[in-house]
């Protein structure tokens, strides 16, 4: 007995059926998938949409049409399943019904006794690609983008036929690229041209005449003037080899933490010999299992944070209060300052002036920006005119008088309170009255830094993450006396820089660094007390983090890690920890714990020789438990201190600033799911059902 499912508030994508007569006489029943909104709200399939599609296919099948075709509204084919109803599903049977409904609707396209065509005119994701895969023929617009199967990234599998049909259509290797490899790599998406090369289309057409050309092509197929020939997928060794290779990649990346990828691999492996019914039945079961999984619930929670909350920062003042920024000043011309200069000129396209204490430093900073722009030019990311424009925007100066007409000045000098206070005072003496002053500090108190100024209300904190051009998070810090106009300006500038802004109170190390340093404190404690570094470093493998703790240390740099831990130790000596072994590492000038001398990361024997450890040896599980408990404690305290408005901002920050994965929901859904939150703080961070299956 199959349960039926309906989603409250589903925006139903209607399958609009229209009988088309070609000039050459063939009749085609054309189904347009359209949710009634423009392309900014793409069509997706919920239960209502699937029912509409099934009905349209049936009506088309019963008509006198020679063929059935499916296409989308302008710019959009379909972007997959409507996921809004998934979080409220509490029963395995209901999840199973979702898979079943999709198959029941889509498989008609592959089993009806008329030829079926997908005219993929625009964005096609997930179920959209699967609709196309069910059809007998596919045309693809060269303008169609993105094309992707993001299910595994979210915690699902393409289980409406994708894992069975795609490998049997385009071969296991190409199918796995779409189903597993791309989602595992920051959810990479492709465009129509690339998709066609993977075999997703029988023919591609330019966007301008896409539907006319597709219909005319269908007519030729129906008249037998075109015979569609596709390479037969290799069902031998190649299939197994592709599965094995991808399995290895997934294991190395997630250490079993993200079950969706493994499940998808199992399904693709089985699709080699499974019948259609078996393949689809296995997909139904996989979907039901995964819909009930904590990883999917965390994934959907993360997806909403990244899609919605990241775009509308909670606590940001009304953007109408923001002041226009037409020129930017940067104090410092070192590497960080130069990276900031590049980001500001590329995104804001306003003049940026860097200052430093001597001409060689200034020249080096400006030179860095110029060489980066030349690099973009060489890679044809920009043209010559744009390169000229951008280069002309950056300048250097030895005096802060260059800030006389700057609306926004950010300092990126050495992390020292006295130095920064002095710099801000010098800047304040030169800038116009309304200018906003920002500090790119990672751990110093912004309020203290502003305290000596005549107008402390215009100072904000602007904490970027390394590498500045890549990491999407920007912590915007409101100091004690920061006014709304300055804060609003900060958020507007941050958004214009392409960053996801999160508001942080002026508390030590703000959000991400405070949590990461606490996490590292616990790892170091374990090592220092006697746990082998390899064991401690593998403790978080089961979470599938982008890198292990000691690899992260190498990226950040031991000196900076030490400095931040010292700052936090000063603030919270009861919880934070300055590792003597980390100090030894820094004193020895080692850039990392690992060496890549052998080609593979290995603990540097010289580092191992430096370490002095105690006799308390923890297992990886014990180390992980200790670090998780430390983080849970820290998050509770951060919430109590009002570092962030809500716990969601912590998870959003960990996703955007530390790259912590969707399947653990940033961090707190994982802490809740493993019982750590309740054990340490007496309560969950998120109520049941928010990033987990409802009770």
């Amino acid at each position, binding site marked *: 007995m199959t349960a039926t499912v309906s989603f409250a508030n589903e925006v139903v994508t209607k399958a*609009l*059926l*229209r009988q*088309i*007569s*070609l*000039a050459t006489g063939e009749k085609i029943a*054309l*189904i*347009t998938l*359209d949710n*009634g909104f423009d392309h900014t709200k793409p069509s997706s399939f919920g239960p209502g949409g699937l029912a509409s599609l099934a009905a349209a296919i049936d009506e088309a099948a019963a008509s006198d049409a020679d063929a059935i075709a499916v*296409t989308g*509204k*302008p710019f959009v084919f379909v972007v997959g399943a409507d996921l809004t109803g998934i979080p409220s599903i509490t029963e395995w049977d209901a999840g199973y019904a979702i898979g079943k409904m999709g198959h029941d609707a889509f498989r008609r396209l592959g089993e009806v006794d008329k030829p079926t065509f997908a005219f993929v005119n625009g964005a096609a994701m997930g179920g959209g690609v699967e609709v196309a895969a069910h059809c007998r023929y596919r045309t693809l617009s060269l303008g169609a983008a993105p094309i992707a199967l993001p299910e595994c990234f979210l915690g699902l599998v393409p289980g409406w036929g994708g894992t069975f049909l795609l490998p049997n259509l385009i071969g296991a290797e190409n199918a796995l690229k779409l189903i597993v490899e791309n989602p595992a790599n920051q959810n990479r998406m492709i465009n129509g041209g690339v998709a066609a090369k993977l075999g997703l289309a029988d023919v591609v057409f*330019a966007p*301008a*005449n*896409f*539907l*006319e050309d597709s*219909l*005319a092509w269908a007519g030729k197929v129906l008249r037998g003037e075109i015979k569609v020939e596709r390479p037969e997928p290799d069902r031998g060794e190649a299939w197994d080899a592709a599965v094995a290779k991808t399995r290895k990649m997934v294991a190395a990346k997630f250490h079993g933490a993200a079950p969706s990828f493994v499940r998808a691999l199992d399904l693709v492996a089985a699709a080699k010999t499974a019948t259609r019914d078996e393949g689809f039945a296995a997909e139904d079961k996989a979907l039901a299992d995964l819909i009930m999984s904590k990883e999917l619930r965390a994934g959907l929670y993360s997806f909403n944070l990244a899609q919605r909350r990241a775009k509308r920062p909670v606590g940001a003042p009304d953007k109408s209060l923001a002041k226009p920024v037409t020129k930017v000043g940067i104090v410092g011309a070192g590497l960080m300052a130069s990276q900031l200069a590049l980001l500001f000129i590329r995104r804001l396209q306003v003049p940026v002036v860097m200052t430093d204490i001597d001409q060689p430093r200034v020249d080096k900073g400006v030179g860095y920006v110029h060489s980066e722009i030349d690099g973009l030019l060489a890679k044809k990311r920009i043209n010559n005119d744009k390169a000229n424009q951008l280069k002309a925007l950056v300048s250097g100066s030895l005096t802060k008088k260059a800030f006389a007409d700057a609306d926004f000045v950010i300092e990126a000098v050495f992390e020292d309170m006295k130095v920064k206070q002095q710099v801000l005072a010098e800047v304040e003496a030169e800038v116009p009255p309304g200018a906003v002053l920002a500090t790119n500090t990672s751990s110093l108190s912004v309020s203290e830094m502003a305290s000596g100024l005549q107008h402390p209300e215009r100072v904000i904190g602007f904490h970027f993450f390394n590498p500045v051009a890549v990491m999407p998070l920007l912590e915007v810090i409101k100091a004690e006396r920061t006014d709304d106009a300055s804060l609003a300006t900060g958020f507007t500038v941050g958004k214009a820089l392409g960053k996801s802004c999160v508001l942080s109170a002026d508390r030590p190390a703000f959000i991400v660094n405070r949590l990461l340093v606490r996490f590292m404190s616990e790892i170091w404690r374990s090592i220092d007390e006697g746990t082998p570094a390899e064991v401690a470093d593998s403790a978080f493998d089961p979470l599938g983090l982008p890198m292990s703790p000691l690899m992260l240390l190498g990226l950040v740099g031991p000196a900076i890690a030490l400095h931040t831990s010292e700052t936090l130790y000063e603030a919270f000596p009861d919880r934070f920890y300055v590792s003597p072994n980390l100090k030894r590492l820094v004193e020895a000038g080692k850039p990392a714990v690992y060496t890549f001398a052998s080609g593979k990361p290995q603990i540097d024997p010289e580092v191992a020789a430096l370490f002095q450890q105690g006799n308390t040896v923890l297992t990886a599980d014990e180390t992980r438990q200790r670090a998780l408990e430390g983080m849970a404690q820290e998050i509770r305290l951060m919430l109590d201190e009002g570092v962030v408005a809500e716990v969601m901002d912590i998870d959003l920050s960990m996703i955007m600033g530390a790259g912590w994965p969707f399947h653990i929901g940033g961090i707190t859904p994982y802490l809740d799911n493993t019982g750590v939150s309740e054990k340490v703080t007496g309560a969950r961070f998120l109520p049941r059902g928010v990033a987990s299956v409802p009770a």
Partner: protein
Amino acid sequence: MSTTAPPRTARTLRDVVFVDGVRTPFGKAGKKGIFAETRADDLVIKVVRDLLRRNPQLPPERIDECAIAATTQTGDQGLTIGRTVALLSGLPNTVPGFALDRMCAGAMTAVTTTGSGIGAGMYDVVIAGGVEHMGHHPMGAGVDPNPRFVSEKVVDTSALNMGMTAENLHDRYPEITKERTDAYGAASQRKYAEALASGRISPWLVPIATRGSEQGWGLAVADEPPRPGTTMDDLAALKTPFRAHGRVTAGNAAGLNDGATGCILAAEEVATELGLPVRMRLVGFGFAGVEPEVMGYGPVPSTEKALERTGLSIDDIGLFELNEAFAVQVLAFLDHFGIKDDDPRVNPYGGAIAIGHPLASSGVRLMIQLAQEFEEHPEVRYGLTAMCIGIGMGGTVIWENPHWNGEQTK
């Protein structure tokens, strides 16, 4: 010290030929029309792309101009539509373009203007066409007529309403009765239906995917306005919206329509060089003004002018493609030149009363049909396309049949 400029090359006129022309199906303007949710510029873009596809031997970079007419040049017909259409059609950005307006004779003027440039050696190959989406741009929308028109009695107020000018023409020529115009309208429908049935219309139509947010995508492959089987009784029952107990009805006039047309023109020597077909050869043209109150009379003086300038007489013309804005203006033309209402040389495939008249696009529609008629009538040497133009004008283009077999002079 003096510099000597290189000797100026002597100017020679070149023959201008009509290489190919296509159009969209014509639709009824308004919310229920087939193109209600289709952009006007997309209509022309698909015409231009089809012209290129039909003539692959024409390297796109050889096109020297893309002249597109539209009466209302705002919204989806704005932004210098000739240039934007060139870019959006995928022509190289080295191909320039412009927009022009001469009301109903927009596309015709695009042809005569760029054709003149070809003749003078300034262009080798051009695209000329027109578009009017009267659903998106209702006639007269957004106009702000100068009050002096009225205060100084420059024109009668009826001059700006095309239907009223048609009634005025009836007043001037009382012998053109409503029976004659209705009969002419019914004949137009019949001739079109025959031409359609015999496959003379569809080959020149570019299929257009039509968006319908409520119905889904459709495909327009045929003209929407024709009313096959229209009888005199049907026509007698229609209202006369422009004047109580008047003579002009929806049945003896063209409707309000959406559509686009385009053609390739070339210097004959360039067409030969590139292997492009020669479907018509431009002989000459004329435009003329008349009292705006009787704008429908315009084609009479424009044709007289064109004949005079080309040294031809009306008897030399073997085929006529006359735009049927109103039956009364066609009949006024025929009466003037002593041609019978049902002369088989006139609009043999039917005219705008059946097909529709998306203002600025119609000029090239006439040429597409004349070119095909030329092919069927090698005994005819000359033909003309003519149309009346709002605010009191007429336009006439005389063409020579490259298939003429020299046996007869007509």
